[in-house]
């Protein structure tokens, strides 16, 4: 575990990598948190839906091109989410363990189906042509695709925020998370709402998978690799907090990248250390408030 000193260029590049990674983590965690917040379900299959998004895009891109694949793959994953919700529905209002185990089983089954269709080996995915190669910031060369990814992630975060804050649907979703009985009493079909949210959260996971694929290369276990940071991000940011999740994602991304620079072997563990420190100082996470979820 030797400590190595990075050069100035390497330092800047890694910090930027950290922000890109953090934005990606934030998008993954956002869909996860949406489902957690509205239904109280810890959706273990969020990661595998992310993987399905990547695999759909992998198959569709050579046929229909990058942009159509970017649009259609998340929709397909969203439909998978809608189907999954039929099973998950049984665990609403019960101990959180039931929803967790149900989606855990679904994740295992869906991962095995990926192996059956696409095989157990991984594939490297090239970045689309218009963002291939490096971009020059003065004398620092930086991957164009990562910049593109960061832009897309920011756009997604803003769109999700606008949807939740500025549309009547968002208002209903937030009200449903706060007091579902009252929302039902006002004549709103809460069941439909929950199905919709599950589909939406799944589509977000799928979209994250599509844009992450050229960065990580795709393999059946990529789902688990995506969901694990999401747990940490949500705990750090605070369950139920939108901006907390974004902040948590960025913190995890940057801290991971910094550790890649100094002690590469610890890079997968530092986020847990960060989490432990943060819940010692702020038991509900950075921006968490006391909620019905505790």
């Amino acid at each position, binding site marked *: 575990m030797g400590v190595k000193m990075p050069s100035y260029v390497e330092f800047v590049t890694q910090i930027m990598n950290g922000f890109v990674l953090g934005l990606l983590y934030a998008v993954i965690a956002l869909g996860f948190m949406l489902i957690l917040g509205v239904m109280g379900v810890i959706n273990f299959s969020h990661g595998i839906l992310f993987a399905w998004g990547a695999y759909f895009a992998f198959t569709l891109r050579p046929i229909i091109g990058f942009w159509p694949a970017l649009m259609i793959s998340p929709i397909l994953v969203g439909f998978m989410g809608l189907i999954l919700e039929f099973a998950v529905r049984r*665990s609403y209002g019960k101990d959180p363990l039931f929803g967790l*185990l*149900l989606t855990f*089983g679904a994740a295992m089954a869906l991962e*095995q189906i990926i192996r059956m269709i696409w095989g157990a080996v991984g594939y490297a995915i090239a970045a689309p042509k218009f963002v291939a190669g490096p971009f020059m910031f003065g004398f620092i060369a930086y991957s164009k695709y990562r910049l593109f990814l960061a832009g897309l992630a920011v756009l997604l975060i803003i769109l999700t925020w606008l949807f939740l804050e500025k549309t009547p649907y968002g208002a209903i979703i937030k009200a449903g998370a706060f007091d579902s009985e009252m929302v039902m009493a006002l004549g709103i079909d809460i069941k439909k709402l929950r199905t919709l949210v599950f589909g939406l959260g799944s589509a977000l996971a799928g979209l994250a998978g599509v844009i992450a694929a050229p960065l990580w290369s795709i393999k059946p276990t990529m789902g688990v690799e995506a969901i694990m940071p999401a*747990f940490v991000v*949500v705990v750090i940011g605070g369950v139920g907090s939108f901006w907390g999740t974004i902040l948590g994602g960025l913190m995890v991304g940057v801290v991971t990248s910094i550790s890649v620079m100094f002690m590469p072997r610890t890079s997968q563990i530092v986020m847990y250390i960060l*989490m432990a420190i943060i819940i010692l100082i702020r038991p509900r996470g950075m921006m968490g408030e006391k909620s019905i979820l505790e």
Partner: protein
Amino acid sequence: MFWVFLFFLVLPYLLPFVGGYTYLGVEVLIWSIFALGYNILLGYTGLPSFGHGAFFGIGAFVAGIMQLRVTQGMWIPILAGIFAATFFGALVGLFLARKRGIYFALLTIAFSQMFWFISWGWDKMTGGEDGLSGINRLPVGIPGLFSIDLKDILNFYYFVYILFVICTILIWIIVRSPFGKTLQAIRYNEIRAKCIGYDTPRYKWLSFTISCAFSGLAGTLYVLLRNAAFSDVMHWTQSGNVIMMVLLGGGLANFYGPILGAGVFIVLRDLFSTLTEHWLLIYGLLFMFVIVFIPEGILSFFKKRQEKEELLVPRE
């Protein structure tokens, strides 16, 4: 309890008639210890941990490392495994003592992940991807008087059986003691238990730590059974497995549920894994099936509908 002990006493002689083998019997006993211990936390305290696989794994790796690198015995590795699992359980428990429900579950997943990455990354100690092999089941006994050769699987079965009997009685005593009753009070209503004057975080911490000790013991025995500690002993699926055993058997409703669950689960897994190479698919679907159709477990089939539903509802 007598009948359970009697059943497992004669089990090795019954297994060949139904196409089983002794190895499977040992596995059922080990997982029963794990699941019974875990149920102190889930069934009696009502805390949904999704990370006990980590403590099983800590027990396994520490026992393996002790035997391979430090001492050649049997008892010291086993005790060291239990101690390490208890120690790390107590440490993690400090973070969890004031949490419950979803937060509790999220944190246990995250911490178990951390231990997984440590075991994966620290390959000088744990063998990383390859794991540790060459662990022996050495003879136990009193020097000069007698010694039992545990390499023989039947002898090892009875070695584990004795530990299983001790653990079962111990856990029975724990859940029926005033301490155990307090845990159940916390499960039904933590705020009320607190108002009566119980220091509930301390009780929850103790419950977590005790269940980790049993996880550690099960882990050490598992390593001895397989003569190796592969990286999968630490894997998060182990956490899912143990919860599944508790729920499947009906651990929320009955003390013996986890034992039945462990038996059914391991037999099913053995059956499916010989039938198809895609058994992970069936395994996943089995999880979904149990949660959707029989979440209260096999042993609560005879309970009334309302009693069943009460088992599943989270408490205040």
